[in-house]
């Protein structure tokens, strides 16, 4: 059987080879450049550790990622709850509402937000009709967060739903029968049971938030750069591959740390990571 198995396994080799040579190798190259460019040594990490602009960029990236995660979690929870507690038909419709934007171009969505949030855009036109002063949102972190959270929603909703549909609806009911008020039955029975989905979604959203380039570049300000944008500038404009590499290492260290956390949380709480990945 084992020889038969390895013969079928050959079918996976072309894809594995493509990902290894076409993806892993390029990523490895930029990581290695962090210690070889412009000359071998740790100068790029010294820059990362001591330069105040680099510090600002890293802290800002983490800050935006934390905010994006919190906002997305708060908005996704009621949506996921509605999905999990509705009939199959309603659930499928809500699923399409979540998945359609998931497959709509990030560029188009950023462009749409520009039209809405710009000085003479839709938002200020509407506010003006009510006699409210125009707001400056485009070019701020607020605009970046509005655009990012909209893109990140599916990644939060899907893990939440996949946990929530597994919650036995008789449990909160039992609490009600035992005399618990509605809010208490929810808060002390349903909510704790749904937490694995909240954690899984939050960690995925946090990881993805660290890598956003298009949305901050188009909706944010060049003076408020995030790591991906700084990486782009370092390499393409300043030709400083080494510093770009150091920023890449910093990002991957954060992604790795959070991923480890996701893995541990999943293990402790008994969620299948594959299930979450499959939901996407």
């Amino acid at each position, binding site marked *: 059987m084992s020889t038969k*198995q*390895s013969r*079928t*396994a050959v*079918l*996976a*080799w072309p*894809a*594995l080879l*493509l*990902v*290894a040579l*076409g*993806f*892993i*190798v*390029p*990523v490895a190259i930029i990581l290695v*450049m962090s210690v070889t460019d412009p000359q071998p040594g740790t100068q790029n990490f010294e820059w990362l550790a001591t330069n105040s602009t680099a510090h600002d960029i890293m802290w800002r990236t983490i800050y935006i990622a934390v905010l994006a995660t919190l906002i997305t979690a708060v908005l996704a929870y*009621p*949506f996921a709850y*509605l999905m999990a507690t509705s009939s199959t038909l309603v659930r499928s419709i*809500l699923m*399409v*509402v*979540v*998945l*359609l*934007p*998931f*497959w*709509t*171009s990030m*560029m188009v969505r950023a*462009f*749409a937000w*520009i*039209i*809405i949030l710009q000085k*003479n*855009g*839709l938002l200020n036109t509407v506010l003006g009709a009510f006699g409210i002063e125009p707001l400056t949102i485009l070019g701020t972190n607020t605009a970046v967060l509005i655009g990012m959270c*909209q893109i990140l*929603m599916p990644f939060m909703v899907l893990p939440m739903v996949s946990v929530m549909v597994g919650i036995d609806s008789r449990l909160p009911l039992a609490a009600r029968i035992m005399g618990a008020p509605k809010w208490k039955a929810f808060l002390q029975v349903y909510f704790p049971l749904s937490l694995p989905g909240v954690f899984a979604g939050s960690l995925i959203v946090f*990881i993805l938030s*660290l*890598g956003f*380039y*298009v949305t901050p570049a*188009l909706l944010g300000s060049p003076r408020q750069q995030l790591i*991906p944008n700084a*990486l*782009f500038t370092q*390499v393409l404009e300043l030709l400083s591959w080494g510093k770009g590499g150091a920023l*890449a290492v910093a*990002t*991957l260290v954060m*992604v790795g740390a959070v*991923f480890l956390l996701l893995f541990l949380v999943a293990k402790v709480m008994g969620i299948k990571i594959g299930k979450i*990945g499959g939901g996407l």
Partner: protein
Amino acid sequence: MNKSRVTLWAACVFIGLWLIAPTLIVIPMSFNEQRSLAFPPKGFSLRWFENFFSDAQWLGGFLNSVQIALLTAVLATVLGTLAAYGLFKVKGIRESIGRNFLIIPMIIPSVIFGVGLYSLFLRLGLVGTLPGFLIAHTALAVPYVVVTVGSTLAAYNVSLERAAWVCGANKFRAFIGVTVPMLMPGILSGAFFAFITSFDEVVVSMFISSPYLQTLPVTMFAGMQREVDPTIAAAATLIMITTTAAAIGGILSQHLKRKRT
């Protein structure tokens, strides 16, 4: 319906609108009569679509994107389906290592991949070439095919394939004649998602494109940083129609599966 349920529905309608409605604004903007992106648009004209299809840069970008996305969809679907099937057959640790390895491109930020690929392609002379784009986009799209085909395989009844063997079909014929048709819903939706992944990709494409070979999102990104040009709105409308159609195709083909199994 009780009161809290009504509140929940109201909140979710708002969230749903926030997810879907803002993007639709690009459609009226693309029919603007004036050279402005101010809201509301004035008048109705097709001049920005005319401009799009008569401008070598925009039309070229569009045709490049369609060509690259179609080829990527074919490559990623073939490689991804074979990989999903191969991994399905080897159970255990090797399967999970392979599967996790194949979804790495979904996790690592595309800027990091893009900048590394740019460095590699500069050395190999692949910047601004069709093979370069195909390598990059297929590597990004394969995970989606592996996931969709993998989830169809999980519900696949292996005894059907065995039956074909017993009836005298060789492995290859059984795979093509029995397994592939059974997996078609997953394969199809994987192909649609691979198409979108390539058609929408902008970050990696910006690194590996040249003035001679650019995809539509790259042209659009450059245009957005340069000037106010409603042709961008026309491009956005075209991208949205294309990807939404493909996404509906992808979601519907997955539903095909649920009905059959």
